[in-house]
């Protein structure tokens, strides 16, 4: 469920980055005030563990297929929510850099979807609540499965919302939800069962690890209440905003979402565009025809946010095709030229 750069708009990507950075900064502050420097190497190596354990295929009984874990819940249980969130963040960062899972712009969303919901919502509200009554094998299994499933449902829903807000796909909201949620119910069940098996094993052989993590995280009731309250406020504000758009636009909720993302973009580029086109009229030196074409094309570029399908005439589309081909040829030529220059230089210096 990694969001990819290609599916996200700068506005959504940026907003999710801000949210993630905020949660990360808060978590770092928490760890620093706990003065638990011992946790830093543990977090580092646990990140590597999650990476490596994602390579293990667990056979799912009765299906013949196998699944692997994401690791968010195990991190929250063993390291506490703050350190768990940060560790998940570094795992996802390395995945984005080395394996092109997700992307750098979408990284904020991915950390939020896979880290925040599990560590700061599902874990404290479900898992901790269950374990407050004491540990037992059955309780561990039940709590893990429920927490993993709910955490992943929220994460998957996050993916749906972010993708729709970004407006890069044509998928209607309902279809997308139907595609994403059920499959993540199954993924969540596997994640929960494997997590439960591992936690039970550790609880049997080295109970102090589990107990220390649960007691040492100093997750005061106040702070978690703050987090949840903050989320509720944000959800209400966006919800109110969205329903306003929905009621003013008969085409449905998803249409409004795309529109909000689009207009935000439009405003940002609007004034700059104006100045640039002024500049362009002043410094015009190209033949009339091509200049006009470029101007109308620019309007299309900016107007795209409003979902206006560019009324392309046969002539301009041919121009576009020819120009596109030329541009690609130019790029290849530039590459070849530079590499030839470099080779010649090497030969001379050698």
């Amino acid at each position, binding site marked *: 469920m990694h969001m990819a750069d290609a599916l996200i708009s700068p506005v959504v990507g940026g907003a999710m980055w801000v949210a993630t950075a905020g949660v990360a900064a808060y978590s770092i502050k928490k760890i620093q005030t706990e003065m638990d420097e011992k946790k830093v190497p543990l977090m580092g190596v646990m990140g590597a563990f999650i990476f*490596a354990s994602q390579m293990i295929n667990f056979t799912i009984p009765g299906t013949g297929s196998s699944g692997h874990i994401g690791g968010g819940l195990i991190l929250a249980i063993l390291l506490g929510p703050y350190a768990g969130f940060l560790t998940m963040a570094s795992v996802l960062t390395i995945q984005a850099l080395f394996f092109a899972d997700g992307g750098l712009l979408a990284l904020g969303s991915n950390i939020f979807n896979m880290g925040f919901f599990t560590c700061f919502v599902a874990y404290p509200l479900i898992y901790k609540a269950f374990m407050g009554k004491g540990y037992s094998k059955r309780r561990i299994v039940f709590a893990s499965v429920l927490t993993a499933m709910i955490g992943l449902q929220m994460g998957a829903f996050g993916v749906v919302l972010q993708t729709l807000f970004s407006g890069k796909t044509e998928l209607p909201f309902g279809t997308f939800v139907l595609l994403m949620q059920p499959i993540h119910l199954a993924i969540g069940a596997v994640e929960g069962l494997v997590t439960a098996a591992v936690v039970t094993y550790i609880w049997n052989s080295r109970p102090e690890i589990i107990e220390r993590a649960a007691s040492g995280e100093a997750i005061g009731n106040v702070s978690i209440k703050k987090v949840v309250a903050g989320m509720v406020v944000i959800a209400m504000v966006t919800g109110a905003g969205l329903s306003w758009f929905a009621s003013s636009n008969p085409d449905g909720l998803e249409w409004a979402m795309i529109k909000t993302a689009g207009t935000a973009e439009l405003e940002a580029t609007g004034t700059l565009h104006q100045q640039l086109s002024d500049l362009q009229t002043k410094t015009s030196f190209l*033949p009339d025809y091509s200049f006009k074409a470029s101007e109308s094309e620019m309007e299309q570029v900016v107007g795209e946010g409003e979902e206006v399908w560019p009324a392309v005439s046969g002539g301009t589309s041919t121009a576009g095709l020819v120009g596109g081909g*030329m541009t690609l040829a130019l790029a290849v030529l530039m590459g070849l030229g530079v590499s030839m220059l470099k080779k010649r230089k090497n030969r001379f210096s050698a």
Partner: protein
Amino acid sequence: MSNIMDSLYNMRLLDDLARQDTVIHKLHPLVKLLATVSYLTVVVSFGRYDIGGILPLVIYPVMVFTLAELPVKPIVLRILLVSPFIIGIGILNPFFDKQIFVLGDREISRGWVTFLSILLKSGLTVTAALLLIATTGMDRLGSALRMLKIPRIFVLQLLLTYRYISVLMEEVARTLRAYSLRAPKQKGVHRSAWGSLAGQLLLRTFDRAQRIYEAMCLRGFAGEYNTGGFGKLRIGDWVYLAVWFLFFITVRFYNIPMLIGSLITGVIR
């Protein structure tokens, strides 16, 4: 299993590439990070019907590839393994948007255009991220993050995770090898061994973390990660950044292929 070896090979390849000594490699890591982020932003900011405008952005990866003398094949192979998620989501576009338009003398549905646009963007963004790491390396990227005032704790933890991925992957590979040798007909790990297999790996990881912590303490670690000094940005770094910024902005506001195309077709006419 082959999965693990693939991932290890991939990480080592990128790490090796990052230790070359070319014009691009010598640039300040911060400059490369900023150029990459602005490139990604510009690529992604294009609308879903706009393919032509993006095309000039192909020049960036082409230039970095050649200037950094990177082997094209292994990296392009990586890029082709684009996340199935993107294709899965994108391939549905033609089904939901069947409106037809005319391009040249052919009729194409809008859905295919948006699908193509998603694929193109995905290719470019994935390439840019891989190029960043293949020309910079994780350690220098870490120092760039420190320059951006990312807290020490996070940077140290990130570097540690990167460092121990290869160690733990080898450990997992050994464990799985031992498992599969004694469970020849199983595709994955049987449910009865879920807890003990992953659990023991985890306990060993905890012990290793403890030893690493001790090794750090014995060399004076007291909760603070001290990096060495950072190199200053030189004129070349500023020029590199400025040139790309200018290029990206130009591409964003002028549809260059359209300009070239109309110039040519205009002349012909």
